[in-house]
């Protein structure tokens, strides 16, 4: 029976919460193709979560693999793929998933299709050519891609599938796989971790007050900070604000910044280029404040105020203060 392996990342023992998203399309594939599905974790733990899911699992174990080490991870997973004769190896395309799979692909010298949202045609069977839809331009565009290799390597686009909810079968024991890893592969292991102050972040804040070119200067962001503080949010920005040195890159929303999904996104003086839009389009509500009623962000937003953002924000802040 053909085998589909799903790599589930864990960070020093804690299973990545979004990793199981990749199981959903994998289960569907296993069903259509009549293949077996097994999971893989690297390093000892993370296993309890898998047992709950009720999937047979492989735990890849080696002294180098006790912390994240992409070269060694990739080598180990490639060896497991060979050892088990897996036809498909897939994982979630987050930062680490994308990196590890690229290593696997390089070691096995196989193609790797990144950020798949749908497998549209696997009628050729597990070893035949497949067609799938994948993400381009950070989500502004899609591509129908054909994968011709018999052995298939894929990453699944994050936030595309809901992870399976509960147990998928009876809990099964895991088997341990000990790869043969050269010492030098430890050269790309994490050597140090630095924790920064916790608090609201761009990715977790319920409301983001974001500014673009229309804000005009670094100093002018003070009024956005003030509003964000008043309503329990954080400040975000467009690439123009980052490039001009008005804000740090960690504030940038978009294709090469952060993708966010707050309850409310307030975009001040941002035009709405596709590369910005893909970063904020998952917001529950969007309010655009712009002098230009035709700005793409205004026409795509749920709500808009037409006018100079400095005037609008000043009036809004005094209105909120007068009510408190």
């Amino acid at each position, binding site marked *: 029976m053909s085998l589909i392996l799903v790599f589930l990342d864990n960070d020093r023992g804690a299973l990545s919460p979004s990793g199981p998203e990749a199981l959903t399309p994998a289960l569907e594939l296993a069903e259509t193709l009549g293949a077996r599905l097994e999971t893989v974790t690297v390093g000892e733990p993370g296993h309890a979560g898998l047992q709950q899911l009720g999937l047979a699992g492989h735990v890849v174990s080696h002294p180098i693999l006790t912390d994240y080490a992409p070269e060694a991870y990739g080598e180990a997973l490639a060896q497991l793929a060979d050892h088990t004769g897996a036809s498909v190896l897939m994982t979630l395309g987050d930062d680490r998933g994308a990196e590890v799979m690229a290593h696997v692909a390089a070691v096995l010298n196989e193609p790797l299709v990144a950020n798949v949202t749908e497998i549209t045609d696997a009628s050729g069977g597990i070893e035949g050519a497949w067609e799938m839809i994948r993400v381009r331009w950070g989500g502004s*565009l899609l591509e*129908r*891609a054909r994968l011709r290799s018999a052995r298939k390597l894929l990453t699944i686009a994050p936030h595309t599938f809901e992870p399976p909810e509960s147990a998928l079968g009876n809990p099964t024991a895991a088997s341990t796989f000990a790869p043969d890893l050269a010492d030098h592969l430890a050269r*790309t292991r994490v050597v140090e971790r630095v924790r920064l102050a916790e608090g609201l972040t761009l990715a977790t804040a319920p409301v983001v007050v974001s500014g673009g070119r229309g804000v005009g200067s670094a100093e002018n962001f003070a009024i956005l900070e003030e509003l964000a503080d008043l309503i329990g949010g954080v400040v975000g920005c467009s690439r123009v604000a*980052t490039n001009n*040195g008005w804000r740090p890159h960690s504030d940038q929303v978009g294709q090469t910044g952060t993708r966010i999904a707050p309850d409310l996104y307030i975009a001040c003086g941002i035009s709405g280029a596709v590369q910005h839009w893909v970063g904020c389009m998952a917001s529950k509500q969007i309010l655009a404040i712009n002098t230009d009623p035709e700005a793409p962000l205004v026409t795509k937003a749920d709500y808009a105020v037409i006018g100079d953002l400095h005037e609008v924000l000043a*009036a809004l802040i005094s209105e909120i203060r007068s009510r408190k």
Partner: protein
Amino acid sequence: MNILVCVKRVPAPGARIVLTDDRQDIDTRHLGFTTSPHEECAVEAAVQLRERHGGTATVLTLGPPEAVEQLRYSVSVGADQVVLVPADTTELDPQATAAALVDAITELESGAPFDLILFGNESADSGGYQVGIRVARALGRPVISGLKGIEIDGDEMVGRRETDEGFEVYRLPLPAVAAAKEGITLPRYPTLPGRLKSRRAQITEVAVEFSSGGQEMVHLLKPTEEVTETVILGHGAEAAPQVVRLLEEVGLL
């Protein structure tokens, strides 16, 4: 420190992406071209490391003759040497791109490896997240992706990568390879002397043979977009009460 940066020429769509009729490409008739911000920042990082440690910063692109525009731009912001690997397309699959880059790099190095080769974390258009890693593995060099900080410490590269909690640090022996994310440093704008220099810059061409990879683009398609009816809450300062009402509805006040 001899550093190489690999960049990819891509169109710069604005508010809407328009496809050609055959859906094989973006309609670029009204568009400019650029590289990914990740790559722009990688070029800046290379120039800064060269300024600090001496040596050279070389920028390479594989693409059509027009990609010289991106090479000249990199000279205007400080690159010393630029290399074009001529190809009639940038639509090679990642395996084929990496193989061609490996051949070109091997030829350029002719025995003396670059101390550092930088890539963008992902190309802006096709976003395969893999070319840098494939090249590094083929050259037998250590590689780390997603860097938001880079320094040279003796014969090691120190890389910093952001996590949910803060950042993690990697130390790679040189020669090494790294993929940068935007924010690793702030790119400079071209100066007038920089622009003049870029016009005179000599373009080195390195021709390689192309193989084909196992992944093929069938056609492009646009994601389905929700059409929203925008509610205009008002104009200027007088919209404030309406906005407060919205904040209350969302539960923020």
